[in-house]
């Protein structure tokens, strides 16, 4: 006991005037080391609540077994993933491949259509028209996309104005129809998602340093070469952002297929919706969503590695 008492004063903090200084230093040290974490708290909470928890709970539900009568209990049922794709009554594999096919076609089409639009607005239009044109790109968002898609179903129906006019001009045969075909579904997706491709590409092109283009011309590049070897590579990040927005949306979308599709355009988005909202097969719906997410993740990761994303932060 005496020994402890003897050393005690030495262990106590330095008394007197030195104390506030050390206190302040400690506070500064503490702030410097915790501020980044405190600042990321909001973003972290956002990620955890709206991303990680739904993700994990989706995975958990997919591993449950049961039915709406007996309830669903957690049983580590990894077998559900196999059973959905091997010898399944409903051929989910077909729906997956079909959705990916529609998604890829729609994404390529939005690039082919959207890039020239963005290029035109960024380079060929005087500054005072730019805002108007961008507003025109966005204006259709003022109406719900379900209603707009349903309007397309009306316009393109067999007795609708488009086909009636085409038949009147003898440009379409009596059996020709648009609704119910994969083309109608892909067209609907392209129409709905075009702005998501135009805007990121525009944002990149708008910020391109004009001196680089002049330099390319000075080095004897003709106009196609300037575009292909300077503009296009520099706008890669815009295309990448557009692909992220369009492709993910297109692959999972059930609306275009159900409003514009027919008997053989059933996609994975519809399958998930029906499993959850009609058949109450929660585990099947969760498993399909998980697979969809993983597949999309792998595809986009591979694309990011190949196409490069080093300047995607330019867009933020």
């Amino acid at each position, binding site marked *: 006991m005496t020994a402890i008492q003897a050393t005690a004063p030495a262990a106590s903090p330095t008394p007197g005037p030195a104390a506030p200084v050390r206190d302040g230093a400690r506070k500064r040290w503490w702030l410097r080391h915790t501020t980044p974490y405190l600042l990321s708290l909001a973003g972290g909470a956002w990620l955890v609540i709206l991303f990680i928890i739904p993700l994990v709970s989706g995975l958990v539900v997919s591993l449950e077994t049961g039915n709406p*009568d007996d309830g669903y209990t957690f049983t580590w049922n990894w077998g559900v993933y196999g059973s959905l794709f091997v010898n399944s009554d409903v051929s989910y594999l077909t729906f997956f491949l079909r959705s990916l096919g529609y998604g890829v076609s729609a994404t390529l089409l939005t690039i082919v259509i959207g890039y020239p639009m963005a290029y035109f607005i960024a380079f060929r239009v005087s500054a005072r028209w730019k805002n108007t044109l961008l507003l025109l790109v966005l204006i259709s968002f003022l109406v719900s996309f379900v209603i707009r898609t349903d309007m397309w179903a009306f316009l393109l129906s067999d007795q609708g104005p488009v086909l009636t006019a085409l038949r009147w001009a003898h440009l379409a045969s009596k059996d020709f129809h648009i609704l119910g075909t994969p083309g109608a579904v892909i067209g609907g997706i392209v129409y709905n998602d075009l702005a998501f491709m135009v805007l990121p590409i525009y944002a990149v092109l708008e910020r391109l340093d004009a001196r680089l283009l002049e330099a390319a011309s000075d080095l004897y590049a003709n106009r196609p070469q300037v575009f292909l070897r300077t503009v296009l590579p520099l706008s890669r990040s815009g295309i990448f952002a557009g692909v992220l927005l369009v492709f993910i949306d297109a692959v999972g979308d059930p609306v275009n297929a159900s409003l514009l599709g027919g008997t053989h355009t059933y996609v994975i988005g*519809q399958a998930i919706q029906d499993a959850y*909202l009609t058949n109450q097969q929660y585990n099947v719906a969760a498993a399909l969503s998980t697979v969809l997410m993983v597949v999309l993740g792998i595809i986009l990761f591979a694309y990011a590695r190949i196409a490069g994303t080093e300047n995607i932060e330019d867009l933020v």
Partner: protein
Amino acid sequence: MRDEAWLRGLTEARVSRRTVLRGVGAGAGLLTLSAILSACGIRGSIAAQSQEKVDWTKYWASHKKTGQLDFANWPLYIDEDHGKSPSLELFTKETGIQVDYQPVIQNNAPFYATVSPELRAHEATGYDIVVMTNGWELTEMINNGFVAELDHSRLPNFAKYAAASVKSPNYDPGNKHSLVWQTGLTGIAYDSRQITRPITSFDDLLDPAFKGHVGMMNDNTELGSAGLLALGIDPATSTPADWKKAAGWLRKQSPNVSGYYDQSYIDKLQNGDTWITQAWSGDVFQAIAGGHKHLKFVTPKEGQMIWHDNMMIPRQAEHPVDALEWMNFYYTPKVAAMVEDWVNYVCPVPAAKAYIKNQLDDPDVANSPLIFPDSSIDTASHNFYVYKNYDEYQLWNDTFNPIIES
């Protein structure tokens, strides 16, 4: 020295205790994880039902009239006049009960899937009356105790005016839980401008001349029943082996079909996209009355389906007495006639016929065999199969869903 040894002993003990605690903690963590995972399960309907038994006499004695009624129904399923319903207004005037009428039910399965988590948790759905077709969902709601048993002493009009065909149906003996709102027939409708030959049979749906212009329903109960009827099998007494055969017929028909539709099938028929389609009688009557004179509804020679949409009171309804009062109010010739003259399905109150003819002066509706059917229609009509348990329902789904989802 002794003190230091004591100290060291204390410290060492603490360290080892901490290790033990850490080990226990990790084990407990794993246990908690698996406990959490198994607690994540989704409760089933049967578990919810077995929780308690309700004394219905006490239930009705303990609830009082509140002056409010929340009514969930299908779209276009009540009389309408400039956005208001005269029959509901009359009800409010006579009883003082305000009605919040919500046409939110687009189809049985999706609506049931939406409210079933609340029903299972014994929470209020926000509706005092829901209208469901006799099918798996309705049977589920009755079997699992999700709907109240009706107090028939407060439903004298039902006993007095209801048609024999809606009393004590096979899916709800004694009308213990449900009263019919409307009855409908599922047959075939076609466009007589495009199809000039007479349509008499389900086999006409196979005609290659109609390829790409045949509509079918995406409700698998309706679709499967059509396949069964086409093969001459009565759906109500069919077996899983019959279902397989019916699926075969539907698969054979599939190349002809332009789509498996929900309620939108009638738009497709009206605008000429489909020429011949599986159809509900009331929709076709409304379409004809709305100016589409070229549409025809036929009962195939193999037979047609008859179904009932039923009013039921969810057990946790907040205003069950008011709901009961509406049910009784509806089963009078006058109110049933007001609704029927607009809705045009099959009326559950035969006495409404005279009221429509004389007071409402609408002989088209009063004399229509689709609305006030004679007995010959009854004999051509078949009931849906009543599923005995979930496995049967699942088997039906597995048999017929691959046709729609293709």
